[in-house]
Protein backbone atom coordinates (compact mmCIF):
# COMPACT_ATOMS: atom_id res chain seq x y z
CA UNK A 1 0.00 0.00 0.00
CA UNK A 2 1.45 3.37 -0.96
CA UNK A 3 1.42 6.25 1.45
CA UNK A 4 -1.34 8.20 -0.34
CA UNK A 5 -3.70 5.24 -0.23
CA UNK A 6 -2.93 4.68 3.43
CA UNK A 7 -3.53 8.35 4.22
CA UNK A 8 -6.93 8.34 2.50
CA UNK A 9 -7.93 5.08 4.18
CA UNK A 10 -6.80 6.38 7.56
CA UNK A 11 -8.71 9.66 7.21
CA UNK A 12 -11.87 7.81 6.14
CA UNK A 13 -11.65 5.56 9.19
CA UNK A 14 -11.43 8.62 11.41
CA UNK A 15 -14.46 10.08 9.65
CA UNK A 16 -16.43 6.83 9.86
CA UNK A 17 -15.72 6.39 13.56
CA UNK A 18 -16.89 9.93 14.25
CA UNK A 19 -20.04 9.66 12.14
CA UNK A 20 -21.15 6.23 13.34
CA UNK A 21 -20.72 7.19 16.99
CA UNK A 22 -22.36 10.58 16.39
CA UNK A 23 -25.34 8.92 14.71
CA UNK A 24 -25.80 6.51 17.62
CA UNK A 25 -25.77 9.48 20.00
CA UNK A 26 -28.30 11.32 17.84
CA UNK A 27 -30.64 8.35 18.23
CA UNK A 28 -30.77 9.14 21.96
CA UNK A 29 -31.90 12.74 21.66
CA UNK A 30 -34.96 13.49 23.81
CA UNK A 31 -34.50 10.29 25.83
CA UNK A 32 -31.92 11.29 28.44
CA UNK A 33 -32.46 10.96 32.21
CA UNK A 34 -31.73 14.63 33.01
CA UNK A 35 -31.98 17.81 30.99
CA UNK A 36 -28.31 18.59 31.69
CA UNK A 37 -27.31 15.22 30.19
CA UNK A 38 -29.61 15.85 27.23
CA UNK A 39 -27.58 18.99 26.54
CA UNK A 40 -24.28 17.19 27.03
CA UNK A 41 -25.28 14.37 24.66
CA UNK A 42 -26.42 16.77 21.95
CA UNK A 43 -23.28 18.84 22.36
CA UNK A 44 -20.98 15.81 22.16
CA UNK A 45 -22.85 14.38 19.18
CA UNK A 46 -22.42 17.72 17.42
CA UNK A 47 -18.68 17.53 18.03
CA UNK A 48 -18.56 14.07 16.41
CA UNK A 49 -20.63 15.10 13.41
CA UNK A 50 -18.41 18.15 13.01
CA UNK A 51 -15.30 15.97 13.13
CA UNK A 52 -16.78 13.55 10.58
CA UNK A 53 -17.44 16.46 8.23
CA UNK A 54 -13.85 17.71 8.50
CA UNK A 55 -12.35 14.26 7.93
CA UNK A 56 -14.67 13.51 5.00
CA UNK A 57 -14.03 16.87 3.37
CA UNK A 58 -10.31 16.15 3.53
CA UNK A 59 -10.82 12.58 2.27
CA UNK A 60 -12.65 14.01 -0.73
CA UNK A 61 -9.68 16.26 -1.52
CA UNK A 62 -7.20 13.41 -1.11
CA UNK A 63 -9.22 11.14 -3.36
CA UNK A 64 -9.63 13.85 -6.02
CA UNK A 65 -12.75 12.37 -7.60
CA UNK A 66 -15.08 15.18 -6.64
CA UNK A 67 -16.69 13.39 -3.71
CA UNK A 68 -17.71 15.51 -0.74
CA UNK A 69 -18.73 14.86 2.86
CA UNK A 70 -22.27 13.80 1.97
CA UNK A 71 -21.11 11.36 -0.71
CA UNK A 72 -19.07 9.54 1.89
CA UNK A 73 -21.81 9.61 4.51
CA UNK A 74 -24.88 8.90 2.43
CA UNK A 75 -23.82 7.09 -0.71
CA UNK A 76 -21.54 4.33 0.52
CA UNK A 77 -22.75 0.87 1.44
CA UNK A 78 -22.03 -0.65 4.81
CA UNK A 79 -19.07 -2.69 3.59
CA UNK A 80 -17.40 0.55 2.54
CA UNK A 81 -17.62 1.89 6.09
CA UNK A 82 -14.41 1.41 8.08
CA UNK A 83 -15.47 2.26 11.63
CA UNK A 84 -14.60 -0.01 14.53
CA UNK A 85 -17.32 -2.45 15.65
CA UNK A 86 -17.56 -0.95 19.14
CA UNK A 87 -19.19 2.21 17.81
CA UNK A 88 -21.92 0.60 15.75
CA UNK A 89 -23.28 -1.46 18.65
CA UNK A 90 -26.89 -0.52 19.37
CA UNK A 91 -27.67 1.82 22.25
CA UNK A 92 -28.82 0.15 25.43
CA UNK A 93 -29.37 2.04 28.67
CA UNK A 94 -27.50 5.10 29.91
CA UNK A 95 -24.78 2.93 31.47
CA UNK A 96 -24.15 1.20 28.12
CA UNK A 97 -23.71 4.58 26.44
CA UNK A 98 -21.35 5.84 29.12
CA UNK A 99 -19.27 2.65 29.11
CA UNK A 100 -18.98 2.71 25.32
CA UNK A 101 -17.92 6.36 25.35
CA UNK A 102 -15.30 5.90 28.06
CA UNK A 103 -13.80 2.81 26.41
CA UNK A 104 -13.63 4.52 23.03
CA UNK A 105 -12.67 8.03 24.09
CA UNK A 106 -9.82 6.84 26.31
CA UNK A 107 -8.41 5.39 23.07
CA UNK A 108 -9.46 8.21 20.75
CA UNK A 109 -7.94 10.90 22.92
CA UNK A 110 -4.57 9.12 22.80
CA UNK A 111 -4.93 8.65 19.06
CA UNK A 112 -5.67 12.37 18.57
CA UNK A 113 -2.81 13.42 20.83
CA UNK A 114 -0.48 11.40 18.63
CA UNK A 115 -2.06 12.71 15.41
CA UNK A 116 -1.44 16.31 16.47
CA UNK A 117 2.26 15.51 15.89
CA UNK A 118 1.90 13.55 12.64
CA UNK A 119 3.52 14.90 9.48
CA UNK A 120 0.27 15.38 7.53
CA UNK A 121 -0.60 19.00 8.26
CA UNK A 122 -4.35 18.73 7.69
CA UNK A 123 -4.79 15.64 9.86
CA UNK A 124 -2.74 17.35 12.56
CA UNK A 125 -4.93 20.46 12.40
CA UNK A 126 -8.19 18.54 12.61
CA UNK A 127 -6.78 16.39 15.41
CA UNK A 128 -5.74 19.49 17.37
CA UNK A 129 -9.29 20.77 17.30
CA UNK A 130 -10.89 17.39 18.03
CA UNK A 131 -8.48 16.66 20.87
CA UNK A 132 -9.83 19.60 22.91
CA UNK A 133 -13.38 18.37 22.44
CA UNK A 134 -12.68 14.75 23.29
CA UNK A 135 -10.63 15.64 26.36
CA UNK A 136 -13.73 17.33 27.77
CA UNK A 137 -16.05 14.46 26.74
CA UNK A 138 -13.81 11.91 28.38
CA UNK A 139 -13.68 13.85 31.63
CA UNK A 140 -17.47 14.17 31.71
CA UNK A 141 -18.15 10.56 30.76
CA UNK A 142 -15.52 9.20 33.15
CA UNK A 143 -17.19 11.04 36.02
CA UNK A 144 -20.46 9.37 35.07
CA UNK A 145 -18.93 5.90 34.91
CA UNK A 146 -17.50 6.46 38.39
CA UNK A 147 -20.87 7.67 39.70
CA UNK A 148 -22.66 4.68 38.23
CA UNK A 149 -20.06 2.17 39.40
CA UNK A 150 -19.86 3.60 42.90
CA UNK A 151 -23.53 4.64 43.15
CA UNK A 152 -26.21 2.09 44.07
CA UNK A 153 -26.08 -1.70 43.84
CA UNK A 154 -28.32 -1.49 40.78
CA UNK A 155 -26.17 1.06 38.98
CA UNK A 156 -23.01 -0.84 39.89
CA UNK A 157 -24.46 -4.02 38.36
CA UNK A 158 -25.58 -2.23 35.21
CA UNK A 159 -22.23 -0.47 34.74
CA UNK A 160 -20.28 -3.68 35.26
CA UNK A 161 -22.46 -5.54 32.79
CA UNK A 162 -22.03 -2.76 30.22
CA UNK A 163 -18.23 -2.88 30.53
CA UNK A 164 -18.25 -6.70 30.35
CA UNK A 165 -20.45 -6.70 27.24
CA UNK A 166 -18.41 -4.13 25.37
CA UNK A 167 -14.97 -5.38 26.34
CA UNK A 168 -14.75 -7.79 23.42
CA UNK A 169 -14.88 -4.85 21.00
CA UNK A 170 -11.88 -3.05 22.50
CA UNK A 171 -9.22 -5.28 20.94
CA UNK A 172 -9.95 -3.98 17.46
CA UNK A 173 -8.98 -0.45 18.53
CA UNK A 174 -5.35 -1.56 18.91
CA UNK A 175 -5.08 -4.27 16.25
CA UNK A 176 -2.75 -2.58 13.75
CA UNK A 177 -3.25 -3.51 10.11
CA UNK A 178 -1.47 -2.35 6.99
CA UNK A 179 -3.19 1.06 6.97
CA UNK A 180 -2.15 1.71 10.56
CA UNK A 181 1.41 0.52 9.92
CA UNK A 182 1.94 2.55 6.76
CA UNK A 183 0.40 5.61 8.37
CA UNK A 184 2.61 5.20 11.43
CA UNK A 185 5.78 4.77 9.37
CA UNK A 186 5.17 7.29 6.59
CA UNK A 187 3.41 10.04 8.54
CA UNK A 188 4.77 9.55 12.01
CA UNK A 189 1.34 8.33 13.07
CA UNK A 190 0.19 6.75 16.32
CA UNK A 191 1.98 3.71 17.69
CA UNK A 192 -0.98 1.50 18.63
CA UNK A 193 1.09 -0.67 20.93
CA UNK A 194 2.04 2.32 23.06
CA UNK A 195 -1.48 3.71 22.92
CA UNK A 196 -2.80 0.42 24.23
CA UNK A 197 -0.50 0.60 27.23
CA UNK A 198 -1.67 4.08 28.08
CA UNK A 199 -5.30 3.14 27.45
CA UNK A 200 -4.97 0.15 29.71
CA UNK A 201 -3.58 2.28 32.52
CA UNK A 202 -6.30 4.92 32.12
CA UNK A 203 -9.12 2.37 32.05
CA UNK A 204 -7.68 0.44 34.99
CA UNK A 205 -7.61 3.63 37.08
CA UNK A 206 -11.16 4.62 36.09
CA UNK A 207 -12.58 1.16 36.76
CA UNK A 208 -10.79 1.07 40.08
CA UNK A 209 -12.26 4.38 41.15
CA UNK A 210 -15.66 3.21 39.91
CA UNK A 211 -15.29 0.04 42.06
CA UNK A 212 -15.72 -1.99 38.84
CA UNK A 213 -13.73 -5.07 37.84
CA UNK A 214 -11.64 -5.01 34.69
CA UNK A 215 -12.77 -7.90 32.47
CA UNK A 216 -10.20 -10.54 31.53
CA UNK A 217 -8.92 -10.21 28.00
CA UNK A 218 -10.47 -13.04 26.03
CA UNK A 219 -11.64 -13.41 22.44
CA UNK A 220 -11.83 -10.06 20.69
CA UNK A 221 -14.21 -9.24 17.82
CA UNK A 222 -12.80 -7.46 14.81
CA UNK A 223 -13.60 -6.69 11.18
CA UNK A 224 -14.99 -3.17 11.21
CA UNK A 225 -11.72 -1.63 10.06
CA UNK A 226 -11.80 -4.00 7.07
CA UNK A 227 -15.46 -3.32 6.24
CA UNK A 228 -16.84 -6.49 7.83
CA UNK A 229 -19.48 -5.25 10.20
CA UNK A 230 -22.10 -6.56 12.57
CA UNK A 231 -25.72 -6.74 11.43
CA UNK A 232 -26.46 -3.53 13.30
CA UNK A 233 -24.64 -1.13 10.97
CA UNK A 234 -26.86 -1.87 7.98
CA UNK A 235 -29.99 -0.67 9.76
CA UNK A 236 -28.29 2.46 11.01
CA UNK A 237 -27.07 3.33 7.55
CA UNK A 238 -30.38 2.50 5.88
CA UNK A 239 -32.15 4.95 8.16
CA UNK A 240 -29.48 7.62 7.85
CA UNK A 241 -29.21 7.41 4.05
CA UNK A 242 -32.92 7.08 3.30
CA UNK A 243 -33.60 10.51 1.77
CA UNK A 244 -30.46 10.60 -0.34
CA UNK A 245 -31.19 7.11 -1.65
CA UNK A 246 -34.88 7.76 -2.45
CA UNK A 247 -34.19 11.10 -4.17
CA UNK A 248 -30.94 10.55 -6.06
CA UNK A 249 -29.13 13.72 -7.02
CA UNK A 250 -31.53 16.08 -5.21
CA UNK A 251 -30.24 19.11 -3.31
CA UNK A 252 -31.22 19.55 0.32
Amino acid at each position, binding site marked *: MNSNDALLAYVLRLGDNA*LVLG*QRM*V*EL*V*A*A*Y*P*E*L*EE*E*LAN*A*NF*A*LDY*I*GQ*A*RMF*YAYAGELEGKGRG*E*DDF*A*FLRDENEYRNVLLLEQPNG*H*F*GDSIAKLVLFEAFYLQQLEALVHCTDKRVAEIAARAEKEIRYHLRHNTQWL*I*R*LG*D*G*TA*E*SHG*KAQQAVDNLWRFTGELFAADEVDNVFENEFDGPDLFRIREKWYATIAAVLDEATLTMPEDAWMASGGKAGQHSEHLGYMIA*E*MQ*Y*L*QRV*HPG*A*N*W
Partner: protein
Amino acid sequence: MYTQGLDQKDKSAPQRDTLETPEQLEAFQARIDAEEKIEAKDWMPEAYRRTLVRQISQHAHSEIIGMQPEGNWLTRAPTLKRKAILLAKIQDEAGHGLYLYSAGETLGVSRDAMVGDLLTGKAKYSSIFNYPTLTWADIGAIGWLVDGAAIMNQIPLCRCSYGPYARAMVRICREESFHQRQGFDILRVLCEGTPEQKAMAQDALNRWWWPSLMMFGPNDADSKHSAQSMAWKIKRFSNDELRQKFVDVTVPQAEFLGLKVPDDDLVYDEKSGHYRFGEIDWQEFIEVIKGNGPCNRQRLGKRRKAHEDGEWVREAARAYAEKQAAKAAA
Protein backbone atom coordinates in the same frame (compact mmCIF):
# COMPACT_ATOMS: atom_id res chain seq x y z
CA MET B 1 -44.53 30.56 21.85
CA TYR B 2 -46.80 28.86 24.06
CA THR B 3 -48.81 31.62 25.68
CA GLN B 4 -51.88 29.41 25.38
CA GLY B 5 -51.46 29.01 29.18
CA LEU B 6 -52.81 32.50 29.70
CA ASP B 7 -56.18 31.50 28.45
CA GLN B 8 -56.74 28.80 31.00
CA LYS B 9 -58.68 29.67 34.09
CA ASP B 10 -56.69 29.89 37.31
CA LYS B 11 -58.05 26.91 39.19
CA SER B 12 -55.77 27.06 42.27
CA ALA B 13 -57.49 27.89 45.53
CA PRO B 14 -56.79 31.58 46.14
CA GLN B 15 -55.98 31.10 49.84
CA ARG B 16 -53.22 33.64 50.13
CA ASP B 17 -55.05 36.14 47.97
CA THR B 18 -57.31 37.01 50.90
CA LEU B 19 -54.32 38.36 52.82
CA GLU B 20 -53.60 40.90 50.10
CA THR B 21 -54.80 44.42 50.91
CA PRO B 22 -56.23 46.81 48.30
CA GLU B 23 -53.30 49.15 49.05
CA GLN B 24 -50.77 46.45 48.22
CA LEU B 25 -52.55 45.59 44.99
CA GLU B 26 -52.79 49.24 44.02
CA ALA B 27 -49.11 49.87 44.72
CA PHE B 28 -48.21 46.79 42.67
CA GLN B 29 -50.33 47.93 39.73
CA ALA B 30 -48.71 51.37 39.94
CA ARG B 31 -45.29 49.78 39.54
CA ILE B 32 -46.54 47.81 36.54
CA ASP B 33 -48.07 50.92 35.01
CA ALA B 34 -44.78 52.75 35.47
CA GLU B 35 -43.13 49.94 33.45
CA GLU B 36 -40.98 48.88 36.39
CA LYS B 37 -39.70 45.31 36.31
CA ILE B 38 -40.93 43.04 39.08
CA GLU B 39 -38.06 40.96 40.51
CA ALA B 40 -38.10 37.61 42.30
CA LYS B 41 -37.88 39.03 45.82
CA ASP B 42 -40.44 41.80 45.30
CA TRP B 43 -43.93 41.57 46.70
CA MET B 44 -46.43 40.36 44.11
CA PRO B 45 -50.06 39.27 44.18
CA GLU B 46 -50.47 35.52 44.50
CA ALA B 47 -52.52 35.36 41.30
CA TYR B 48 -49.72 37.17 39.38
CA ARG B 49 -47.22 34.63 40.70
CA ARG B 50 -49.46 31.66 39.81
CA THR B 51 -50.15 33.00 36.32
CA LEU B 52 -46.45 33.36 35.66
CA VAL B 53 -45.60 29.93 37.06
CA ARG B 54 -48.23 28.42 34.79
CA GLN B 55 -47.06 30.30 31.72
CA ILE B 56 -43.31 29.90 32.27
CA SER B 57 -43.57 26.20 33.11
CA GLN B 58 -45.85 25.61 30.13
CA HIS B 59 -43.32 27.40 27.96
CA ALA B 60 -40.49 25.26 29.40
CA HIS B 61 -42.48 22.05 28.87
CA SER B 62 -43.17 23.11 25.28
CA GLU B 63 -39.45 23.46 24.63
CA ILE B 64 -38.80 19.98 26.02
CA ILE B 65 -41.70 18.24 24.27
CA GLY B 66 -40.89 20.22 21.11
CA MET B 67 -37.58 18.35 20.87
CA GLN B 68 -39.49 15.20 19.92
CA PRO B 69 -41.16 16.10 16.60
CA GLU B 70 -37.86 17.54 15.35
CA GLY B 71 -35.83 14.71 16.85
CA ASN B 72 -37.96 12.43 14.71
CA TRP B 73 -35.92 13.52 11.64
CA LEU B 74 -32.52 13.82 13.24
CA THR B 75 -31.39 10.32 12.30
CA ARG B 76 -32.72 10.83 8.74
CA ALA B 77 -31.58 14.40 8.04
CA PRO B 78 -30.53 14.46 4.38
CA THR B 79 -27.06 16.00 4.71
CA LEU B 80 -24.49 16.23 7.49
CA LYS B 81 -24.82 20.01 7.53
CA ARG B 82 -28.61 19.80 7.96
CA LYS B 83 -28.14 17.16 10.64
CA ALA B 84 -25.73 19.39 12.56
CA ILE B 85 -28.02 22.44 12.26
CA LEU B 86 -31.04 20.46 13.43
CA LEU B 87 -29.11 18.96 16.31
CA ALA B 88 -27.89 22.41 17.35
CA LYS B 89 -31.49 23.66 17.22
CA ILE B 90 -32.73 20.82 19.40
CA GLN B 91 -29.88 21.46 21.80
CA ASP B 92 -30.93 25.13 21.96
CA GLU B 93 -34.43 23.99 22.87
CA ALA B 94 -33.14 21.86 25.75
CA GLY B 95 -31.19 24.96 26.83
CA HIS B 96 -34.32 27.15 26.61
CA GLY B 97 -36.11 24.57 28.77
CA LEU B 98 -33.34 24.87 31.33
CA TYR B 99 -33.42 28.68 31.57
CA LEU B 100 -37.18 28.74 31.67
CA TYR B 101 -37.31 26.21 34.50
CA SER B 102 -34.77 28.40 36.30
CA ALA B 103 -36.95 31.48 35.70
CA GLY B 104 -39.89 29.45 37.08
CA GLU B 105 -37.86 28.51 40.15
CA THR B 106 -37.42 32.21 41.02
CA LEU B 107 -41.16 32.13 41.74
CA GLY B 108 -40.73 29.48 44.43
CA VAL B 109 -41.59 26.31 42.49
CA SER B 110 -38.98 23.58 42.06
CA ARG B 111 -38.06 22.18 38.68
CA ASP B 112 -38.99 18.71 39.95
CA ALA B 113 -42.47 19.95 40.81
CA MET B 114 -42.91 21.57 37.40
CA VAL B 115 -41.64 18.46 35.57
CA GLY B 116 -43.87 16.32 37.80
CA ASP B 117 -46.91 18.29 36.64
CA LEU B 118 -45.92 17.73 33.02
CA LEU B 119 -45.52 13.99 33.50
CA THR B 120 -48.85 13.54 35.25
CA GLY B 121 -50.56 15.52 32.49
CA LYS B 122 -51.61 18.30 34.90
CA ALA B 123 -49.50 20.92 33.14
CA LYS B 124 -49.98 21.60 29.44
CA TYR B 125 -47.57 22.33 26.64
CA SER B 126 -48.18 23.97 23.29
CA SER B 127 -50.80 22.13 21.23
CA ILE B 128 -48.62 22.35 18.12
CA PHE B 129 -46.26 19.60 19.25
CA ASN B 130 -49.04 17.05 19.17
CA TYR B 131 -48.88 17.01 15.38
CA PRO B 132 -46.60 14.49 13.63
CA THR B 133 -43.54 15.28 11.48
CA LEU B 134 -44.14 13.04 8.48
CA THR B 135 -41.55 14.25 5.99
CA TRP B 136 -38.30 16.22 6.00
CA ALA B 137 -40.26 19.27 4.80
CA ASP B 138 -42.05 19.28 8.17
CA ILE B 139 -38.74 20.22 9.77
CA GLY B 140 -38.67 23.25 7.49
CA ALA B 141 -42.31 24.03 8.27
CA ILE B 142 -41.71 23.85 12.01
CA GLY B 143 -38.84 26.31 11.75
CA TRP B 144 -40.66 28.68 9.42
CA LEU B 145 -44.21 28.56 10.80
CA VAL B 146 -44.00 27.26 14.35
CA ASP B 147 -40.90 29.20 15.32
CA GLY B 148 -42.26 32.15 13.33
CA ALA B 149 -45.49 32.10 15.37
CA ALA B 150 -43.43 31.62 18.53
CA ILE B 151 -41.37 34.73 17.76
CA MET B 152 -44.54 36.80 17.29
CA ASN B 153 -45.64 35.72 20.76
CA GLN B 154 -42.24 35.95 22.37
CA ILE B 155 -40.90 39.31 21.21
CA PRO B 156 -43.47 41.14 23.37
CA LEU B 157 -42.51 38.83 26.26
CA CYS B 158 -39.04 40.39 26.25
CA ARG B 159 -40.85 43.41 27.76
CA CYS B 160 -42.89 41.29 30.18
CA SER B 161 -43.26 42.90 33.62
CA TYR B 162 -41.55 40.00 35.38
CA GLY B 163 -37.79 40.61 35.08
CA PRO B 164 -36.39 37.05 35.13
CA TYR B 165 -38.84 35.91 32.45
CA ALA B 166 -38.25 38.99 30.28
CA ARG B 167 -34.48 38.49 30.43
CA ALA B 168 -34.74 34.78 29.58
CA MET B 169 -36.89 35.72 26.58
CA VAL B 170 -34.32 38.15 25.17
CA ARG B 171 -31.85 35.32 24.76
CA ILE B 172 -34.44 32.83 23.55
CA CYS B 173 -35.80 35.20 20.88
CA ARG B 174 -32.35 35.70 19.41
CA GLU B 175 -31.97 31.95 18.94
CA GLU B 176 -35.54 31.46 17.71
CA SER B 177 -35.09 33.93 14.90
CA PHE B 178 -32.04 31.97 13.74
CA HIS B 179 -34.14 28.78 13.83
CA GLN B 180 -36.85 30.42 11.80
CA ARG B 181 -34.43 31.42 9.06
CA GLN B 182 -33.04 27.88 8.97
CA GLY B 183 -36.56 26.45 8.59
CA PHE B 184 -37.36 28.83 5.77
CA ASP B 185 -34.08 27.88 4.09
CA ILE B 186 -34.99 24.16 4.20
CA LEU B 187 -38.26 24.94 2.41
CA ARG B 188 -36.62 27.31 -0.07
CA VAL B 189 -34.22 24.60 -1.17
CA LEU B 190 -37.07 22.07 -1.45
CA CYS B 191 -39.16 24.52 -3.50
CA GLU B 192 -36.24 25.05 -5.88
CA GLY B 193 -35.70 21.28 -6.09
CA THR B 194 -37.39 18.36 -7.83
CA PRO B 195 -41.20 18.17 -8.28
CA GLU B 196 -41.29 15.57 -5.48
CA GLN B 197 -39.44 17.93 -3.14
CA LYS B 198 -41.76 20.82 -3.97
CA ALA B 199 -44.80 18.59 -3.37
CA MET B 200 -43.29 17.66 -0.01
CA ALA B 201 -43.03 21.36 0.89
CA GLN B 202 -46.64 22.06 -0.16
CA ASP B 203 -47.89 19.07 1.82
CA ALA B 204 -46.06 20.33 4.91
CA LEU B 205 -47.61 23.80 4.56
CA ASN B 206 -51.05 22.20 4.13
CA ARG B 207 -50.69 20.30 7.38
CA TRP B 208 -48.91 22.95 9.52
CA TRP B 209 -50.71 26.15 8.50
CA TRP B 210 -53.86 25.85 10.59
CA PRO B 211 -52.22 24.34 13.68
CA SER B 212 -49.73 27.26 13.55
CA LEU B 213 -52.59 29.79 13.59
CA MET B 214 -54.03 27.94 16.59
CA MET B 215 -50.81 28.56 18.50
CA PHE B 216 -52.01 32.09 19.28
CA GLY B 217 -54.88 30.70 21.34
CA PRO B 218 -58.64 31.32 21.13
CA ASN B 219 -60.19 34.39 19.50
CA ASP B 220 -60.19 37.47 21.73
CA ALA B 221 -63.95 37.18 22.27
CA ASP B 222 -63.40 33.72 23.79
CA SER B 223 -60.21 34.54 25.65
CA LYS B 224 -61.65 35.83 28.90
CA HIS B 225 -58.66 35.18 31.12
CA SER B 226 -56.15 37.22 29.20
CA ALA B 227 -57.50 40.65 30.31
CA GLN B 228 -55.76 40.37 33.69
CA SER B 229 -52.50 39.31 32.01
CA MET B 230 -52.72 42.39 29.78
CA ALA B 231 -53.28 44.62 32.84
CA TRP B 232 -50.24 43.05 34.50
CA LYS B 233 -48.22 43.51 31.31
CA ILE B 234 -47.33 39.85 31.14
CA LYS B 235 -49.14 39.90 27.86
CA ARG B 236 -48.87 42.96 25.60
CA PHE B 237 -51.00 42.14 22.57
CA SER B 238 -54.19 40.14 22.16
CA ASN B 239 -54.31 36.70 20.55
CA ASP B 240 -56.06 38.03 17.45
CA GLU B 241 -53.65 40.94 17.03
CA LEU B 242 -50.67 38.59 17.09
CA ARG B 243 -52.34 36.07 14.80
CA GLN B 244 -53.13 38.81 12.27
CA LYS B 245 -49.55 40.01 12.37
CA PHE B 246 -48.32 36.47 11.75
CA VAL B 247 -50.62 35.99 8.76
CA ASP B 248 -49.60 39.36 7.30
CA VAL B 249 -45.92 38.50 7.54
CA THR B 250 -46.17 34.85 6.48
CA VAL B 251 -48.46 34.92 3.43
CA PRO B 252 -45.97 36.91 1.29
CA GLN B 253 -43.24 34.46 2.34
CA ALA B 254 -45.39 31.54 1.11
CA GLU B 255 -45.85 33.41 -2.17
CA PHE B 256 -42.11 33.91 -2.43
CA LEU B 257 -41.67 30.15 -2.06
CA GLY B 258 -44.35 29.52 -4.69
CA LEU B 259 -46.53 27.66 -2.20
CA LYS B 260 -50.28 28.00 -1.75
CA VAL B 261 -51.64 28.74 1.70
CA PRO B 262 -54.43 26.18 2.28
CA ASP B 263 -57.20 28.73 2.89
CA ASP B 264 -59.73 29.52 0.13
CA ASP B 265 -60.97 32.53 2.07
CA LEU B 266 -57.57 34.17 2.21
CA VAL B 267 -57.65 37.62 0.52
CA TYR B 268 -55.63 40.78 0.80
CA ASP B 269 -57.73 43.70 1.97
CA GLU B 270 -56.28 46.82 0.34
CA LYS B 271 -58.17 49.17 2.62
CA SER B 272 -56.88 47.83 5.91
CA GLY B 273 -53.59 46.52 4.57
CA HIS B 274 -54.24 43.14 6.19
CA TYR B 275 -54.96 39.66 4.91
CA ARG B 276 -58.43 38.36 5.75
CA PHE B 277 -58.41 34.65 6.47
CA GLY B 278 -60.89 31.84 7.02
CA GLU B 279 -62.30 30.47 10.26
CA ILE B 280 -60.05 28.22 12.34
CA ASP B 281 -61.44 24.79 13.23
CA TRP B 282 -61.76 25.48 16.95
CA GLN B 283 -63.18 22.03 17.60
CA GLU B 284 -59.86 20.54 16.47
CA PHE B 285 -58.00 22.96 18.75
CA ILE B 286 -60.16 21.97 21.74
CA GLU B 287 -59.64 18.27 21.03
CA VAL B 288 -55.87 18.64 20.81
CA ILE B 289 -55.79 20.63 24.08
CA LYS B 290 -57.95 17.94 25.70
CA GLY B 291 -55.39 15.29 24.75
CA ASN B 292 -56.94 13.96 21.55
CA GLY B 293 -54.39 15.26 19.04
CA PRO B 294 -52.54 12.83 16.77
CA CYS B 295 -49.48 12.56 19.05
CA ASN B 296 -50.48 13.62 22.59
CA ARG B 297 -50.10 10.15 24.08
CA GLN B 298 -46.94 9.40 22.14
CA ARG B 299 -45.21 12.65 23.21
CA LEU B 300 -46.05 12.35 26.88
CA GLY B 301 -45.39 8.62 26.81
CA LYS B 302 -41.89 9.17 25.49
CA ARG B 303 -41.18 11.87 28.09
CA ARG B 304 -42.44 9.62 30.88
CA LYS B 305 -40.40 6.69 29.64
CA ALA B 306 -37.23 8.81 29.53
CA HIS B 307 -37.93 9.98 33.06
CA GLU B 308 -38.65 6.47 34.37
CA ASP B 309 -35.70 4.92 32.53
CA GLY B 310 -33.49 7.55 34.12
CA GLU B 311 -34.60 6.91 37.68
CA TRP B 312 -31.77 4.49 38.46
CA VAL B 313 -29.27 6.97 37.03
CA ARG B 314 -30.54 9.84 39.19
CA GLU B 315 -30.52 7.54 42.22
CA ALA B 316 -26.95 6.51 41.47
CA ALA B 317 -25.87 10.15 41.20
CA ARG B 318 -27.52 10.94 44.55
CA ALA B 319 -26.02 7.88 46.25
CA TYR B 320 -22.56 8.72 44.91
CA ALA B 321 -22.84 12.36 46.03
CA GLU B 322 -23.87 11.22 49.51
CA LYS B 323 -20.92 8.83 49.73
CA GLN B 324 -18.53 11.58 48.67
CA ALA B 325 -20.03 14.01 51.18
CA ALA B 326 -19.69 11.38 53.94
CA LYS B 327 -16.05 10.78 52.97
CA ALA B 328 -15.32 14.51 53.00
CA ALA B 329 -16.92 14.86 56.45
CA ALA B 330 -14.98 11.89 57.88
